């Protein structure tokens, strides 16, 4: 029995995905938020998860973070995971560097936190109180806190949604460069189609409790201009918005 299950099946694209959910369901009262959902993420893959508000993106992410009970369900998660939340969720009574090493044990040194903060461009604020940070700085600290754990799976729950446009662009670049250096598998939850198309290798659309659509982007980042239009139109279509040209202005201006 055990011998057999260890042999990878031919149908599975990657022999050892870091995340694998099979027929996963999550129910709150009468509502099935996640319903018979399948998901696989390969090591080092950058996946974006799109979905309408209330479609269950956060619920799925909480499951992957190990925050919700999932007894008796078929899921495989990597040992080391780290999450960056939309609101940075730094403990306000701990200095920034103490937040970064939170839970790593007393022997974790201060300089380790300092170098992680250096890497996200926040080295000068290592000893600050979190409530004195700007939104972008707090999110950088939150990234440092995740990366210092060297996660196999990095979960990002709309981490840029609350930032202003300029800060968001900088954070996108930062996340990409950190991903390229450390190569964790990334699941980026977002409701921003542009963000998903700019950052991810693969885009999933969550709808009615399942992965309703999937788009793989072959073109490398930085030269995706030619595929963006049709991709946007198709993704918006999956989200329930019809636009032939894939242009936002046309979408809004269209007569009903």
């Amino acid at each position, binding site marked *: 029995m055990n011998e057999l299950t260890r042999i990878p099946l031919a149908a599975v694209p990657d022999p050892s995905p870091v995340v694998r959910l099979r027929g996963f369901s999550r129910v709150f009262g009468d509502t099935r938020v996640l319903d018979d959902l399948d998901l696989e993420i390969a090591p080092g893959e950058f996946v974006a998860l799109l979905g309408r508000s209330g479609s269950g993106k956060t619920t799925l992410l909480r499951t992957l*973070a190990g925050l919700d009970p999932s007894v008796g369900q078929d899921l495989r998660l990597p040992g080391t995971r780290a999450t960056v939340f939309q609101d940075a969720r730094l403990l306000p009574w701990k200095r920034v560097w103490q937040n970064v090493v939170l839970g790593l044990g007393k022997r974790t040194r201060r300089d380790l936190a300092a170098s992680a903060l250096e890497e996200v461009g926040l080295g000068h604020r290592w000893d600050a109180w979190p*409530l004195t940070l700007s939104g972008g700085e707090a999110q950088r600290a939150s990234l440092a806190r995740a990366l210092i754990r060297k996660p196999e799976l990095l979960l990002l729950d709309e981490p840029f949604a609350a930032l202003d446009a300029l800060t968001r662009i900088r954070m996108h670049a930062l996340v990409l460069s950190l991903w390229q250096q450390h190569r964790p598998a990334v699941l980026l939850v977002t409701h921003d189609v542009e963000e998903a198309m700019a950052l991810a290798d693969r885009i999933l659309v969550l709808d009615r409790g399942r992965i309703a659509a999937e788009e793989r982007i072959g073109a490398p980042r930085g030269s995706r201009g030619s595929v963006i239009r049709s991709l946007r139109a198709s993704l918006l279509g999956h989200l329930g918005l019809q636009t032939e040209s894939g242009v936002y202005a046309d979408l809004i201006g269209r007569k009903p």
Partner: protein
Amino acid sequence: MTTKRDVLQARWLSPVALLLLWELASRTGVIPDHILAAPSSVVRSLFGMTASGELPLNLAVSLRRAALGFAIGSSLGVVLALAAGLLRRGDALIDPIIQIKRTLPVVALTPLFIIWFGIGETTKIALIAFASMLPVYINLHQGIRGIDIRLVDAARSFGLGRAALIGNVILPGALPSLLTGLRYSLSISVLMLVIAEQVNASAGLGFMIQNARDAMRTDIIVVCLMVYALLGLAGDSLIRAIESKALAWRPTLVEA
């Protein structure tokens, strides 16, 4: 340079004017000594009673009552609030009883306490302890219950166990509420001290007041009232000092 306007707007002006008026009224005989002693004779009595050792001795007795009662009461409040706030079974056991006790004015228990503990020190300390327990319990319990669940989730997602969660998130998060509770408890301790010392005391500020009343020495009564006020003030500044140290992370106290 102080101008006429500055002087008129100074906050010390009206109390000083009142004192002068009072002194004037006493000197001219508008307020007789047996109704209310003049400020100057109050100050004279204060120095006299301090020099003779009468005031320091009785103050020490009163301080001991208040300090012991407060220490016992607030410790009890902390222990009960922790048990009720952190353990589900503790909450079911403890909270209903405290809520019942809450409806009962502690002063009303004085006759029972006298029957149980006699008219000595025990009754006085027990009354103060019993009264000062409640604010600490209620505030700390609420503080623990009101912890931001998102911070708890974040800490859990980084692998913090129950003990680490309590130490790093729940207790620091409830500390502001605890300090608020302690401040209320301190002022209630002084209030209960005044009440308890009217129960057949043979030493202490209340005892001095009773003797002064029998001798119509209003100057001594005023001195004792001043000391009561100073006790309350001292307790309040003590808590404030602790707050500004322990809650340095709070936005109002953080220097930008």
